[in-house]
């Protein structure tokens, strides 16, 4: 035997041995990797990149942080606000509501929760001089002006709007942070300072779960908090991680690496439905998708033209074809289940003849317009926008093209206001989740003449919103908000498209109904 062939033989042996060892080790490692039965893994589409409970406003953040920093109230979409950490509320008048807190609530570090903590947290949320400029303060607690502790368990909240509006706001967005801990460890009372860090000790809420492991940007592991005041949550251990790709989340679900995943794309639904032991669960969310038309520039200054755009677009057809049925056509700014949703309003139905006639009436026949559409922000957004633009383009007297852009362009356009000298993009696609459960959140920023970022300038609509903000009686206020939605439908400030559905992949044996407000609460699950 030559030396050369001898070497070849040894090399082959080594390669074979390496292969066998690799497969064996992988198999063994697979056995070692089995998860404990009382553990739940939830895979999000985006991992929270801030751990400050006030420095966010989107769903994925609430999914994680609300288990640690629980809400003061339970919000049940469509049903309203219910006691939780706050046991009772009383409207004192003069823009003040009193909250009566439980006296047995403790933070994860062992400190008792007091009214001072709650008042400080609310003030930190609404006052930009204390801590980080909070998105929740800017959007969620818009009418709340401050809070004061009256004794250990009593807090008075002050607000500038109607009590009903304030209740929707603090009912959704009020949380409790440990004031002394936050200041001592994170300078959280200094302007611009947020709670940050990369250790489990950097979290300290009163929620049913406490953080035991934290890998920044990757994974957070929670375990039941032994001293929690309320009912024991259903799983001993909960792991939150994330995968930005829908296909990746689906693969994790199929292989049992995760138990619940959010934001499944319509094209991945069949894969989940065909897999063993997992299923799709869906719910119509509070997020509406629409095409704002700024009425301070031509041709959108004509109500006839704006209505024509609504008649040109087949929003029900778009839901069926582009969204595979995962949505509902809509004809008003907010979704069902929102306080003030007007159930008498039907979506505009596509009517090409009517649309062409209204365009002629508007005096803008033959006009060319451009629809600016973001890509990757909403469910199949670019395809939805292109289809809508194509349907408008099919009118004999309007030419329309879609311009697909980065979301930042659309976001800028949406907050640019209505000054005709600065408007560059008057017709675009945007989505809005009315997560407070109240119409005011869905219309105020778009239509109120007090809002610098409004997209539509109309006195009647703005006055109707202002009136709703001053009505104290909840039923009267709801009726006024329904009127706001009716006026909005008639004046057509948007091409109303649809309410988006939330699509989840879930292990079959987990009992859980998805919520319309897009939050995932483990305490609402069972196995």
């Amino acid at each position, binding site marked *: 035997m*030559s*030396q*050369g062939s001898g070497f070849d033989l040894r*090399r082959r042996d080594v390669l074979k041995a390496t292969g066998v060892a*690799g*497969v064996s*080790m*992988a*198999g*063994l*490692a*697979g056995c*070692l*990797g089995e998860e404990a039965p009382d553990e739940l893994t939830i895979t999000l589409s*985006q991992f929270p*990149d*801030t*751990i*400050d409970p006030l*420095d966010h*406003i*989107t769903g994925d953040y609430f999914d994680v942080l609300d288990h640690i920093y629980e809400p003061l109230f339970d919000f049940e979409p469509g049903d309203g606000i219910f006691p939780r950490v706050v046991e009772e509320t009383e409207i004192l008048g003069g823009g003040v509501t009193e909250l009566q807190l439980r006296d047995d609530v403790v933070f994860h570090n062992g400190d008792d929760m007091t009214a001072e903590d709650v008042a400080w947290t609310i003030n930190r949320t609404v006052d*930009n001089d204390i801590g*980080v*400029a909070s*998105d929740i303060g*800017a*959007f969620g607690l818009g009418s709340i002006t401050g809070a004061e502790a009256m004794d250990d368990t009593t807090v008075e909240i002050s607000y500038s709007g109607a009590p009903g509006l304030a209740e929707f706001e603090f009912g959704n967005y009020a949380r409790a942070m440990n004031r002394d801990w936050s200041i001592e460890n994170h300078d959280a009372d200094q302007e611009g*300072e*947020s709670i*940050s*860090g*990369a250790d489990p000790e950097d979290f300290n809420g009163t929620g049913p779960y406490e953080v035991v492991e934290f890998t*920044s*940007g*990757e994974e957070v592991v929670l375990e039941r908090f032994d001293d929690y005041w309320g009912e024991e949550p259903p799983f001993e251990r909960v792991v939150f*991680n*994330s*995968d*930005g*790709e829908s296909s*990746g989340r689906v*693969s*994790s679900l*199929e*292989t049992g*690496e995760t138990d619940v995943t959010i934001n499944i794309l319509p094209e991945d639904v069949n894969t989940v439905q065909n897999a063993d032991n997992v299923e799709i669960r869906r719910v119509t969310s509070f997020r509406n998708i629409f095409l704002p038309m700024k009425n301070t520039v031509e041709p959108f200054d004509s109500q006839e033209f704006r209505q024509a755009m609504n008649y040109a677009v087949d929003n029900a057809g778009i839901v069926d074809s582009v969204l595979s049925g995962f949505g509902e056509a809509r004809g008003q700014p907010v979704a069902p289940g929102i306080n003030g949703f007007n159930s008498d309003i039907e979506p505009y139905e596509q009517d090409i003849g009517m649309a062409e006639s209204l365009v002629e009436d508007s005096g803008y026949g033959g006009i060319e317009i451009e629809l600016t559409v973001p890509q990757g922000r909403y469910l199949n957004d670019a395809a939805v926008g292109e289809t809508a633009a194509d349907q408008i383009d099919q009118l004999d007297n309007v030419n329309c093209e879609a311009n697909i*852009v*980065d*979301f*930042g*362009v659309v*976001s*800028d356009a*949406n*907050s640019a206001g209505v000054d005709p000298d600065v408007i560059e993009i008057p017709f675009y696609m945007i989505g*809005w989740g009315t997560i407070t459960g109240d119409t005011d959140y869905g219309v105020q*920023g778009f239509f109120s003449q007090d*809002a*610098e970022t409004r997209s539509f300038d109309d006195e009647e609509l703005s006055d109707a919103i202002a009136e709703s903000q001053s009505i104290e009686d909840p039923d009267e206020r709801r009726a006024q908000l329904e009127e706001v939605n009716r006026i909005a439908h008639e004046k057509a400030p948007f091409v109303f498209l649809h309410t988006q559905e939330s699509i989840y992949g879930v292990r079959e044996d987990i009992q859980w109904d998805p919520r319309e407000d897009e939050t995932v609460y483990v305490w609402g699950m069972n196995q």
Partner: protein
Amino acid sequence: MSIAKFLVRRTLQAVFVVWGVVTIMFGLRAVSPGDPATLMLGEGATAETIARVRAQEGLDEPIYVQYLDYVQGLLIGDFGYSWRSNREVEAMVIERIPATLELAIAATVVALVIAIPLGVVSATRRNEPADYGATLFSLLGISTPNFWLGLMLILLFGVWLGIFPTGRRPVGLVEAIWTLVAFGSAGDLLTWLQHITLPALTLGTYFTALITRLTRSGMVDELGKPYVTATRAKGLPAVLVRYKHVLRNTMIPILTVLGLQMGTLMGGAVITETVFNWPGLGLRLIDALDARDWPLMQGIIVFIAVAFVTINVFVDALYSSLDPRVNDE
């Protein structure tokens, strides 16, 4: 020219390359659509809040002032704070380096272990089935986009066969080795191996194919040279001729390509890490892009640029020690 002078020249060039990257990144930030403050605050932020954040982040300063501030910060190692998490960018970059390094090293090991023997066999058995097989493998490896390959590997080995997990990195290599050494438990190491196998194969395939081809063509060239005939005439065994003399000379261009391809490897790592949810710099870069977190994005890219030029200078140094003639070029 001495090696020292050669290295000084290359280092100076590297500094200019990094400065160029810093400047281009800053320019891109300036011309990219979307006001950062608006993006940070989300849809519908009030003008007052936006103005406040702009002032806080220095975004209302003239662009040259922002640039000088940024460069000055970099020079003293201050990459700034992430707009989203309010954490130091340096810390956010450093904590992700091990994962990317593990992946890059594993992919390189996969590539070298497979490619060099395959290239040698292919060159020494020209026009035989082994050569055709290696050539076909190279062609497929170079032509296959790694995002597609990754998804196929997940589908085959993760979903259908259930041998490997579909992604993530539950344990780091250092931690796994420490557990083995300190506690005698191989569990963590096996978990690590199980999780890195598919990403390393995905990232390493293009590299494997490329090095196989380079090894083959280099070996074929070298085998035809007179010194090979001379060494054979001296009676040296074939295996020594191939591996001690011919392969050593073939390694010089391979080493160069290996260094140059580190950039490609980093680029590929962004995609591979995204497909496998591997928590390295690439995945963090994608997250930063999604969130428009410019300080973090710039920090990662500057780090990658520094790593890239450092590796190249190192490769040049190694090259010059293997072949001193390059010092005079």
